[in-house]
């Protein structure tokens, strides 16, 4: 995608009016950078040249983007086209829109937007999964009455676009369609890419601590690309995964690309300090790791055996030891007491131990377990 870049100093649009809550920071900072792209809009046959404005704060961090677009794709030049300014945050999430003072959006047959229509438009554009995501332009163009889904019979399922009242502004489906694809279409990836390539490592560290998970995930990807694994960064990752197990998979993707020593340190940290899900994820990562893992390192994990509360934790732990640290006397010593744990854990431990090299006393314990529970094995 072709792009041009110009740095523009102090561009102001004093007459633009917001129709919904939201902050416009575009006039508070001096640095605005103009990007020119050719992008596809599903309502247009050819790529369109667009100008995206990036706003940076005093630390050169992109903080907002905006772009001026036409309110409606108008194939036969019969529609009234109103300029609309669309705002995104710095990772391409749509924020709000505004119109020039005095401008009004129109519906079919020259009806004007009512005040509630502007609110609804904001709601539609904020919905990343709006029905407009997948409908085709010709479906939109055949809409007669968008709020009426009674046009569909059991027989033909007539093809009038079926949209719930909340999903569109009645009489302005084409406007909704046009603006939704600007707000949530190809521009999102362009903005995200621009921000990630622009920000410094320190700013990425801030992203790791942002409440919004999308910042965290974006930062992880970029840090992986840049191969940045400093302690500040890994600590930030640790803090996040301890709080939110749903971030484990993405976080381990990053950690697993780290140098060996950092990887082992972080994984051990997660195992020791994390809850059940974190412990399991750490063990599974080690299990699949291409690195050679020292016996001493794995033996250290034994300390945590009393803290393994669930069957799942014990199971993955024993699987790891069986495959990467077999016949470790320290591990065997640590696991023998598990024969007295709840039965499922004890049985799983028994099956681990019978494949290990045990001393006589240990063998006696294992045999005693067998005699007591042979009907349950």
């Amino acid at each position: 995608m072709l792009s041009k870049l110009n740095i523009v100093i102090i561009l102001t649009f004093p007459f633009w009016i917001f129709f919904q809550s939201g902050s416009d920071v575009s006039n508070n900072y001096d640095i605005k950078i103009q990007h020119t792209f050719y992008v596809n809009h599903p309502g247009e046959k050819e790529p369109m040249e667009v100008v995206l404005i990036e706003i940076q704060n005093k630390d050169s961090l992109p903080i907002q983007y905006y772009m001026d677009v036409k309110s409606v794709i108008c194939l036969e030049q019969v529609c009234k086209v109103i300029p609309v300014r669309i705002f995104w945050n710095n990772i391409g999430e749509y924020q709000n829109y505004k119109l020039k003072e005095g401008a009004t959006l129109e519906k079919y047959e020259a009806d004007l937007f009512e005040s509630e229509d502007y609110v609804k438009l904001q709601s539609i554009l904020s919905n990343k999964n709006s029905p407009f995501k997948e409908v085709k332009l010709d479906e939109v163009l055949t809409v007669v009455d968008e709020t009426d889904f009674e046009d569909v019979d059991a027989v033909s399922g007539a093809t009038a676009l079926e949209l719930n009242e909340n999903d569109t502004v009645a009489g302005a489906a084409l406007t909704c369609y046009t603006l939704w694809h600007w707000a949530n279409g190809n521009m999102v990836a362009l903005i995200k890419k621009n921000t990630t390539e622009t920000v410094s490592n320190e700013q990425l560290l801030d992203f790791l601590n942002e409440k919004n998970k999308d910042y965290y995930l974006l930062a992880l990807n970029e840090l992986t690309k840049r191969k940045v694994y400093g302690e500040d960064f890994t600590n930030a990752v640790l803090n996040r995964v301890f709080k939110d197990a749903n971030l484990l998979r993405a976080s381990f993707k990053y950690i697993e690309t780290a140098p060996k020593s950092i990887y082992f340190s972080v994984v051990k940290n997660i195992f020791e300090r994390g809850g059940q899900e974190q412990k399991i994820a750490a063990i599974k990562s080690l299990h699949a790791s291409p690195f050679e893992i020292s016996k001493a390192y794995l033996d250290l994990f034994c300390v945590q055996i009393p803290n393994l509360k669930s069957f799942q934790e014990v199971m993955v732990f024993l699987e790891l030891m069986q495959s990467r640290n077999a016949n470790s006397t320290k591990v065997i010593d640590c696991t023998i007491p598990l024969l007295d744990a709840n039965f499922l854990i004890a049985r799983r431990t028994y099956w681990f131990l019978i494949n290990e090299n045990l001393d006589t006393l240990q063998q006696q314990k294992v045999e005693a377990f067998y005699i007591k529970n042979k009907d349950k094995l």
Partner: protein
Amino acid sequence: MQRRDFFKKGTTAAIAAGVIPLVASSCASTQDVVYDRKLDKWYHLGTGKTGMPSRKKTIGYDVAVIGGGAAGICAAVAAARNGSKTVLVQDRPVLGGNASSEMRVHLNGVNQLNNGEAERETGIIEEMLLHNRFENEQESFPIFDHVLYDFVVREPNLTLMLNTQAVDAEMKGDIIKSALCWQATTEILYTINAHIFIDCSGDGLLAATSGAEYRTGREGKAEFNETYAPDEPDGWQMGATLLMSSKDMGRPIKYSPPSYVIKYTHEGASLKRKFAGYHEGIWWIEVGSEGDIIADFEVNRHKLMGYLHGVWDYIKNSGKFPEAENLALDWVGSLPGRRESRRFIGDYIVSEKDMTEYKQFEDAIAFGGWSLDEHNPGGIENISEPPSYFHHHFDEVYQFPFRALYSKNVSNLMFAGRNVSQTHIALSSSRIMATCALMGQAVGTAATICNKKNILPREVAQKHINELQEQIMRDDVFIPKRPANDPNDLARKANLIFGSTTLSGDAKNLTNGISRDIDGAINHWQSDGLSAELQLEWELPIALSSVEIKCDTNVKRNIMMRKDSRNDDLYGNAIPPEMLKSLSLEGRVNGVWQNIGDIKENRTRLIKFKFDSMNVTAIRVKMTETYGAEHVKLFEIRCYA
């Protein structure tokens, strides 16, 4: 109509004029149909012999299903799979009924509730539609015919008889002893004996000839306290529709209507008569009847052909549709799709309030949720009225009871589809094909219970309804507000169930008996990425020979084939990406995991592993691939000895 004399007269008897088979695809005369042996002068040049062809056969089955639409197919497949030797008798050369290439009606179901989402039917009907997604990417209706044919003939316990119409019932008391069936293509008169008969033919000729009570027309408001019924009862039945489709030729195409056209002007038409999507057919080209709608059918068909061309002439030549200049008709129906005729009376008659007030039935076996889509009396001959009133849209799915699916007065007769025990207003919603298909699976399964226990359908309702409900739910039917609780399911007795990762839901949900997310509750387990594992542990070893899994196919998104190939949040035109594709099953024996089975190209929501019985203390399902989704989602796991 009871047993007729000609049955008693043996092979040389002439058929009575009153029971001439109504074989729509045949041009046979009475003489052709009734094979008079004495007059047969067949000289076979190959053998040099004179003889008489054999044209009468008697065959026997556990279950005879009449009608090969969605309801009939599901009834027959359910009966066969559950162990009944079954025959499916279809009077057309293709399966699918209204959804066949002869009529091309969309196979709709609960396409959209008021929350904007579908609540799609599962079970056999879903399996059929998924089969179509694999075998018919081009979304061709003629190919759909063959997909359904494949779906039926591959069942080992099921015999398909096409071009065959059940025209008369031979009775013994209140029991149908046999169905007299005329096969048009072979000139054979079949006598089909069966323990249970299921009439899914829509018009229900067999059921009518058995003496089963039925009614036609509209109930008055008072009878069932129906808001949308007329004040007084009348004879109106919703009409049949003739569809068409056109294609863009890339250049202007002229159109001149045929001699039988009925001119259409749209003057005075209700604003609800819209033309959206007209290039793929117009559903309100419809003619009904207030009298005997079956007897009127050929007259109405001729009218519909005239109206179809009249409307197309209006589109092409009125000047009001300039975008139609390049369009040409490339398919026109000749067989109208019927909505309504006989409704047989069961032990319960479903009515409007049962649906709109979401009545809870002890014998619920199916659900619906299409709107109360009552078409106007008169159809296209009454254009000032809206083509349908769409009285009511549903917030959630409603239950449908088993007692509406068997005859009140013919003991071994069940039905599924539009001919079941319900009012005209209830029919306006439940007539939808996927809803009918759920009824079909229920009666097919019930028929097998009847055969196994040597009982009749009413006894299933009275004494074995729990068994019926549990079996159809095991076979992946969803019954609203009725969680499964199969005492034979050993997964429910597992001491521990867990997933290797969890993005949403909980592995414990997989044994809660609710096989979809519904009523605001999550009933799934979803992995965080792939591959993923699900494990069940038992303290004591158990003998297993079957593991059954219900995976996600996104029941909130429709998968039926549509003429417009719509593909958005509500309709998909491909295999659901959520569906599990590759998985394997392992059992732990004496502490060692053993592979039990691998499935590489799964095609169904209900995934079954069947194996020689083995004693295990745990099982592990390893899932490695979906049809596109990043995570795998399951709704149920069951284990059986």
